[in-house]
């Protein structure tokens, strides 16, 4: 198999779901702990992820490299397409354009979000326990909150609609009926996963996250 655009595009499609789609769902569920169980729940979730074996390898091969390939190749895919929603006002054509627009938004958002959170931990500016208070700072700033809301909705739409397209690109949903039903399921995925992220953003606004962080800070200082 020669390296050609068929192979790259196929890999791009696969990586968008496995592992990136899987990651976004796990991320949403972890954040949701903040809404359901408060700072302790969120902290437990973060600790659980950080206690995974071979964490640096997992991060590089399951998140960073797939993310970079999917993101950079995705920008090229977006560059290669036109938008003709003015002439063809069909729902699916709108989704086609939205997939490319949300992809670019997600690309920028993910870099910024990783810089604000994971990068700060790497740089030693904050600890894992302080991620809750970092998120509290972000969620209570109205500008950041709106930008996060846009970023999160763009990312989840891109994932849900990408899941629909993945099922076609890999030849799983073939007929129009199968594709229609899968579009309903993917719309459901969009609603549920969006709700997880929005509810956790709302939860991060609560004062308990500020206090919990202070407590953690005191605790680390004593330690």
């Amino acid at each position, binding site marked *: 198999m020669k390296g050609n*655009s068929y192979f790259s595009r196929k890999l791009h499609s696969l990586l968008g779901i496995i592992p990136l789609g899987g990651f976004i769902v796990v991320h949403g569920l972890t954040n949701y702990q903040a809404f359901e169980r408060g700072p302790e729940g969120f902290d437990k979730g973060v600790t659980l992820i950080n206690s995974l074996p071979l964490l640096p390898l997992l991060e590089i091969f399951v998140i960073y490299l797939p993310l970079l390939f999917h993101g950079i190749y995705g920008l090229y895919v977006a560059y*290669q397409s036109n938008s003709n929603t003015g002439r063809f006002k*069909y729902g699916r054509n709108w989704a086609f*354009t939205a997939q490319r627009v949300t992809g670019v938004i997600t690309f920028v958002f993910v870099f910024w979000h990783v810089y604000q959170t994971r990068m700060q931990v790497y740089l030693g500016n904050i600890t894992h326990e302080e991620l809750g208070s970092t998120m509290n700072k972000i969620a209570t700033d109205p500008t950041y909150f709106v930008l996060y809301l846009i970023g999160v909705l763009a990312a989840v739409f891109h994932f849900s609609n990408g899941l629909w397209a993945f099922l076609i*690109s890999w030849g799983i949903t073939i*007929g129009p009926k199968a594709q229609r039903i899968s579009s309903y399921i993917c719309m459901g995925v969009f609603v549920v996963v969006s709700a997880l992220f929005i509810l956790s953003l709302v939860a991060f606004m609560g004062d308990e996250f500020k206090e919990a962080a202070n407590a953690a800070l005191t605790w680390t200082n004593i330690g």
Partner: protein
Amino acid sequence: MAETTVASKTVKFIISRQDTPESKPYTQEFELPYRPNMNVISGLMEIQRNPTTADGVKTSPVCWESNCLEEVCGACSMVINGKPRQACSALIDQLEQPVRLEPMRTFPVVRDLVINRERMFNALKKVKAWIPIDGTYDLGPGPRMAESKRQWAYELSKCMTCGVCLESCPNVNDRNSFIGPAAISQVRLFNAHPTGEMNKHERLDALMTDGGIEGCGNSQNCVRSCPKGIPLTTSIAAMNKDTTTHLFKKWLGM
């Protein structure tokens, strides 16, 4: 009374014109006397007989291509009121006025409404959209095709290479080498044929090269625009399945 109203009725055309492949396009308006059962082609014929714009200025006749006049050859495809379709089956009575005509700019414009659809024929050659039966001796009769299969394959054979699906596809453009939906559907047609199936892998290999099936971005405009109602998106998804299977079989050496 009724007769005078009919006699004074006119049809207005706004036509995008271009004198040479390189020159800048411009628009001209034409106003023609209405006749019952007119279509866009008969309107263009009227302009050819009397090439005078709505302002009364003499101009060159508008160029277009047409052949069968019954929507089976695809030659008269153009953009009519924003949608790509065949001019012969575009009835004036069913169109909003003024009628706007443009060439399908996805293809190189030769002159006025005439375009060069050569890329579609190149795409058919690329995917080997034929059944090789030539040999040095009589190969005898081929295997039979099941009637149930023939019925859906017949729908795919209605493709007239008109280019409407390429014109509606957001991924067929200068920055993209995508061959377009028509040729992919033809792979499905020839791979479904019991004799054509014998060279199935060659067509799938062609779809798995640059500009092949991966160019599809699932906007699904093609299936909604196809004048023949060909299930193009089903064909693309079916070929996605076949190319995926083919890819893994090749990797595993099966």
